[in-house]
């Protein structure tokens, strides 16, 4: 019996798989909900069964079987190695840098990888009031490595943040078009990798500043059939 070939990977799926691959060797990762959480759960299932997932709700070493809607879902508490109060989470675990990698999202990212999740427009009279800082500022400060995951468009990748919520200095920004990494000298986020089928010009157009491009831009390895199947199965659960 012939099986139907799976649909090609979408940009969002590639972004998620690329983020997951970065956790192959990580000991622990701090995640919020959404794509970062999906990527981390996928990484634990596919590459790194010992990966410690930490949510700011207080669950350390959660082992979710499904993608949680909120960071406080019951399954996270029930499967965690330890559940701690929010003050303990920030003071004893995040602040001293015990969680190795942080996955962060944002509404705006600037050329140094700083983040805005507070307002679009003026603070006192915002055009759009965003949710606000949440845990991000101190997570970025505490965790030794920060990885930003964001959709690549010119509203998000801006020349100037409307509000600087989080000083992030990420080691990588994973978008649905490619990967930006800091230039070793200037620290400016520089295009170093393109996802399959994406052109440099497309990324430039989707970036609100004059995007620096690395001398040797590599191409993301296509998601394997196994990666894609695992991701789709996880989302469908």
């Amino acid at each position, binding site marked *: 019996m012939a099986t139907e070939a799976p649909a090609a990977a979408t940009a969002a799926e590639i972004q998620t798989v690329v983020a997951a691959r970065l956790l192959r060797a990580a000991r622990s990762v701090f995640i919020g909900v959404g794509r970062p959480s999906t990527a981390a759960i996928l990484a634990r299932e596919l590459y790194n069964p010992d990966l410690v997932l930490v949510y700011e709700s207080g669950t350390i070493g959660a082992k979710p079987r499904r993608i949680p809607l909120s960071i406080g879902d019951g399954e996270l508490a029930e499967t965690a190695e330890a559940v701690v109060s929010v003050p303990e989470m920030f003071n004893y675990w995040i*602040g001293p840098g015990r969680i190795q990698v942080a996955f962060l999202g944002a509404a705006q990212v600037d050329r140094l990888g700083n983040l805005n999740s507070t307002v679009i427009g003026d603070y006192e009279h915002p055009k759009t009031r965003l*949710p606000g*800082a949440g845990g991000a500022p101190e997570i970025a400060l505490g965790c030794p490595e920060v990885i930003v995951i964001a959709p690549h468009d010119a509203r998000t990748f801006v020349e100037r943040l409307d509000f600087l919520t989080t000083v992030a200095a990420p080691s990588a920004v994973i978008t649905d078009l490619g990967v930006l990494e800091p230039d070793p000298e200037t620290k400016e986020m520089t295009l170093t990798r393109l996802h399959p089928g994406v052109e440099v010009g497309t990324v430039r157009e989707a970036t609100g500043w004059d995007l620096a491009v690395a001398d040797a831009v590599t191409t993301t390895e296509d998601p394997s059939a196994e990666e894609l199947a695992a991701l789709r199965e996880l989302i469908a659960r």
Partner: protein
Amino acid sequence: MSDITTLSEAVEELVHDGDTLALEGFTHLIPFAAGHEVIRQGHIELTLVRMTPDLLYDQMIGMGCASGLVFSYGGNPGVGSLHRFRDAIENGWPSALEVEEHSHAGMANRYAASAAGLPMAVMRGYVGTDLMAHTQVEEIECPFTGEKLVAVPALDLDVAIVHAQEADREGNVQLWGIPGVQKEAVLGARRSLVTVERIVERLEPRPGAVVIPGWAVDAVVEAPAGSLPSYSLGITERDNDFYRAWDKLSRDRDEFRAWMDEHVIEGAPA
């Protein structure tokens, strides 16, 4: 020993117009039943304090209870915006909302300072962000190392309301699962109310439980399912569908008001 009373009596006695009021519960154990009673009693000019305003404060803000909001993350977790929160800040509807925002770490430390009866807490953070200029935070130097840290002020809470799974007849409270900042909120406020899923003869000690002695709480009220659409681990489940549905229900002012009238104002317990 705390008073075991009814929700309407407890809210009448403990909550007054103009109070600074924290209803806490980090995603888990959010005290919806108590917040709805505050709405029904028509309290106004409240300063609402909560790390994650969530749907409950979206409702209270939209119903005109609040003149101030102290918070660190005002979103519908995993879904998107809180539309009543945004409408209040962006358009002043139904009335102007004075906002004081912090990071989660800042809020958590402010709660901890309140519980300790200290005027402030010291931490690392804020430096380099625009938050620094828009909220209450001050640089402070370590007298031993010279390192520049920051201080955040203790929260000054008139009332804290939290929800727990159980209390016994002496009003001793036990909650388990994600503990959030509930203990800090109760210990840090002048007056406190705990609603519980059930009152039991004797608290059976549970793994991971936080126990608050009855003499440290002012009032305990039985409010079964009182945290829905949030949840009480082991007793009720989070109504994720409602969190998603709220995104549509709450976008339009009239639709929001109609929903609240039908489900909260008219839905008062006997």
